[in-house]
């Protein structure tokens, strides 16, 4: 059916996006003043040592030529070598990719678990104290700096009441989940408020809608009206919102990663930017870009399945 034909054609749009991201990253990071060689050598750097390193990593070539090399490497499935870690960038990223994506995934699931029931509760009690309470709490949730929230959770749930480990990442699936609990909760507390507000607004509208009235008119009790008609209709707009937020999250977990010492890509990226490890910045940026594009693509697919009217 051609409703789904975009599943085949849309991935072609990845190409210009990923290319664009690579070009912008390339230019941007090289515009940052500061020299990777000097960062590497630290206080004892001498001009000859610096020149030596620059030559070794091809940093003394003209910029355009460096980009050509980069593209050529990319065509061979390589992304160059990290100046700081001295290993292949792709291998380096491979070691850090899982924690970040596990973190994002857990956070998103947790947000949904928090947001949907609360939004439902608020919408179904619109204007009553429960609704006001949920809205006020959720508005507060948006305003807390995540690093503060994270630290509070850590002090409460890891030190005062040692339910979860303070930080880090585990070996086994169970351990990993246990370690991700607090960071995910921190992210979820702010992400869910965004979701909650949009869901609640949509639900309130749909509860008042003709569709709900029609369902009531055929005798459906309120819980059926809600779960079978209002909820599915309210979800569609939130999917897009969620996708955009996941996009932000993918590139923005660094603060949480560094607070909870999650060995993910966000931390790698920030260190790479600070130490001008160009190839790593480049590589991580492209992985993030691909992930974001993929998430949006999945969101599109989800929207098409949730809302039969949508064509892409």
């Amino acid at each position, binding site marked *: 059916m051609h409703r789904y034909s975009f599943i085949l054609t849309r991935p072609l749009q990845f190409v210009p996006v990923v290319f664009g991201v690579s070009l912008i990253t390339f230019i941007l990071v090289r515009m940052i003043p500061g020299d990777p060689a000097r960062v590497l050598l630290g206080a004892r750097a001498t001009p000859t040592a610096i020149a030596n390193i620059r030559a070794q990593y091809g940093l003394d070539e003209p910029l355009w030529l460096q980009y050509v090399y980069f593209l050529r490497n990319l065509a061979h499935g390589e992304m160059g070598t990290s100046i700081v870690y001295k290993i292949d960038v792709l291998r380096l990223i491979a070691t850090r990719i899982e924690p970040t994506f596990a973190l994002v995934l857990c956070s998103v699931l947790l947000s949904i678990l928090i947001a949907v029931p609360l939004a439902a509760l608020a919408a179904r009690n619109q204007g009553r104290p429960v609704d006001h309470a949920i809205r006020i709490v959720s*508005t*507060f949730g948006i305003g807390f*700096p995540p690093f503060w929230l994270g630290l509070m959770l850590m002090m409460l749930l890891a030190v005062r009441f040692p339910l979860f480990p303070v930080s880090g990442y585990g070996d086994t699936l169970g351990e990993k989940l246990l370690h991700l609990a607090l960071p995910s909760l921190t992210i979820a507390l702010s992400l869910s408020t965004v979701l909650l507000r949009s869901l609640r607004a949509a639900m309130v509208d749909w509860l008042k809608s003709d569709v709900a009235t029609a369902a009531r008119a055929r005798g459906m009790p309120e819980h059926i009206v809600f779960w079978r008609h209002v909820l599915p209709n309210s979800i569609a707009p939130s999917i897009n919102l969620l996708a955009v937020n996941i996009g932000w999250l993918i*590139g923005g977990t660094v603060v949480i990663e560094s607070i909870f010492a999650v060995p993910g890509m966000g931390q790698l*990226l*920030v260190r790479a930017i600070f130490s001008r490890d160009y190839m790593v910045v480049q590589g991580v940026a492209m992985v993030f870009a691909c992930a974001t*594009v993929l998430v949006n693509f999945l969101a599109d697919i989800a929207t098409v399945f949730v809302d039969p009217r949508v064509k892409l």
Partner: protein
Amino acid sequence: MSAPALPRPLNPTLVAGLAIVGLFALAALAAPLIAPADPIYQDAAARLQAPSLAHPFGTDNFGRDILSRIIYGARVDLQMAVIGVFFPLVIGTVIGALAGFFGGLVDAVLMRLIDIILAFPFLVLMLSIIAILGPGLSSFYIAMALVGWVSYARLIRAQILVLKNADYAVAAVSLGFSRSRVLFRHLLPNSVAGSLVFCMSDAVLVLLSGAAISYLGLGVQPPTAEWGIMVAEGQAFLSQAWWITLFPGLSIVFLAFGFSMIGDALGEIMGVHE
């Protein structure tokens, strides 16, 4: 039958939101008058003092008065919220409107650009720009503007795409109105409601981005008092001196609360959720 226009009762959410934001704005304006102390004066004798009559919100590790720093911080943070939203709003609106209205190649190019920026890790851009231009408010604004416009452009473009085929737009064309008149007088005013609501929550996001940047050490120049940096720096003293982080943290939360309420109210008034 035409019902007489009822005088609309003032929206209580809007009033409350405006009151909160207004309060902070007032504090910012009157900072030199109401702040009990110099926000950057360090008093070695008064380090890490708990809230007291002399220092209602306590002092930090330099002996600076936190209440005064919060009051002066309101200047910076309100400015951040306003400017951090204003430029993205304006740029995004114009770009989104042009893309939606003219369609074709203009639209295709701008949409790809939007895709790229959306896929671009925000942090790379933010940190790079701050690194290129040096930490400080103007780098922050530039970074916010470079990224932030995308959301607005998408919102506006989607609206314009729908509205440009609306009957009243076609009607305007049929009456010989110029393109710019159709776009700016008829289409745009009808498309901005969603953006205006969004910009209220965006203001909060801007403040939080600022705080995150401070956490990474690239916040405003010291010794400027700014809430995000106060929270970030106060972290070190969390267990000894909770007041260093709590009060600026609450300030962000309350301002965010005010903005959200205005946003909610605007949404209700302008009928965004229909």
